[in-house]
């Protein structure tokens, strides 16, 4: 039979295992839930262009109603994925890439792009990309590329929406 101290140690051990398991699982679990919802916006390795967020329609948590979100839920299992964004005629736009642990592994905005297209290749360690392309190493197969485009007034959405649709997400074969 366990002594009282033994039972306390047993409970403490279980509590520690639960704590560390929960802490380790939270980022990936939250991201998986988010990616599942984003898959409704576009399929895997495809750029989808969501309409402006409303009270009834959102694709990310706590969306900005001033931003038009374009999303690519990428999967690098079958090879690197290329993301390209041509300059968008809007006061601000940016491309950010999140890994499966919710970390932002790449961010570039319109000023940094300097009126040039942003063209990057997302890849895992051990994968290769054509020479001359900017590469971004991602630590997980799945993740999210997100283009945020500022829509200063809702009336401006139609023109900005047409312009942002040049953004692409493509599996490199």
């Amino acid at each position, binding site marked *: 039979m366990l002594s009282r101290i033994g039972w306390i140690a*047993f409970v403490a051990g279980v*509590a520690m295992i639960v704590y560390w398991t929960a*802490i380790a699982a*939270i980022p990936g679990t939250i991201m998986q839930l988010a990616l599942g919802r984003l898959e409704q916006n576009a399929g895997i390795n495809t750029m989808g262009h969501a309409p402006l967020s*409303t009270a009834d329609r959102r694709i990310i*948590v706590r969306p900005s109603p001033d931003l038009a979100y374009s999303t690519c839920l990428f999967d690098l299992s079958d090879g690197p994925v290329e993301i390209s964004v041509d300059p968008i005629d809007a006061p601000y736009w940016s491309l950010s890439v999140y890994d499966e642990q919710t970390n932002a592994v790449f961010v570039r905005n319109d000023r940094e792009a300097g009126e040039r297209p942003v063209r990057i290749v997302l890849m895992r360690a051990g994968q290769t990309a054509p020479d001359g392309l900017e590469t971004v190493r991602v630590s997980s197969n799945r993740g999210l590329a997100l283009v945020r485009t500022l829509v200063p007034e809702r009336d401006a959405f139609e023109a900005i929406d047409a312009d942002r649709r040049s953004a692409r997400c493509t599996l490199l074969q």
Partner: protein
Amino acid sequence: MRLALRILFALVLGIAIGLGVTWLSLRAGISAFEERIGPWITSQEFGSAEASDRSRAIVAVRGLMALPASEAIYFNAATDSEGRALDGGCRYRIAGPPLAARWWSVTAYGADAHLISNPDHAYSAGGDGAEAVLAQTGPEPGLGEIATRDGAPFELTLRAYGPGDGLLDGTLPEIERLSC
């Protein structure tokens, strides 16, 4: 049989304590990440990769898909400048000098983190960083004002895109209750 029940009880107790400590740890960690400037609360850890699992979990809970602080800084407020909870039945003015940023916007959210439903999609106000911050909220918003819901609490998020070095040292907008 008695031993099995004791083991089961110990397991359940251990799981409950573990989950409770997880919740307390994340809550304490969130507070540690946050900075308060008047009614506004911000964090510069959103969207960043941290070394420890605990830091990752905190960032995931609070800042999923958020831009890192070099790209945008987010300020949240659940009270006015006098510390009173924001009430959707009241009218508020959010006013302050220009921010050290390319663009700012103020958005109202319900307690469920959703935009507040209204027929005119009056969710936010924004402007160039060179412009003074000025927005008004109310349950019956006028032109250009942000809609809230009478009888429901709400929160405000101030976003500053392209933040400059002096943003956190500068003056943030006051949130003034005009009437209820």
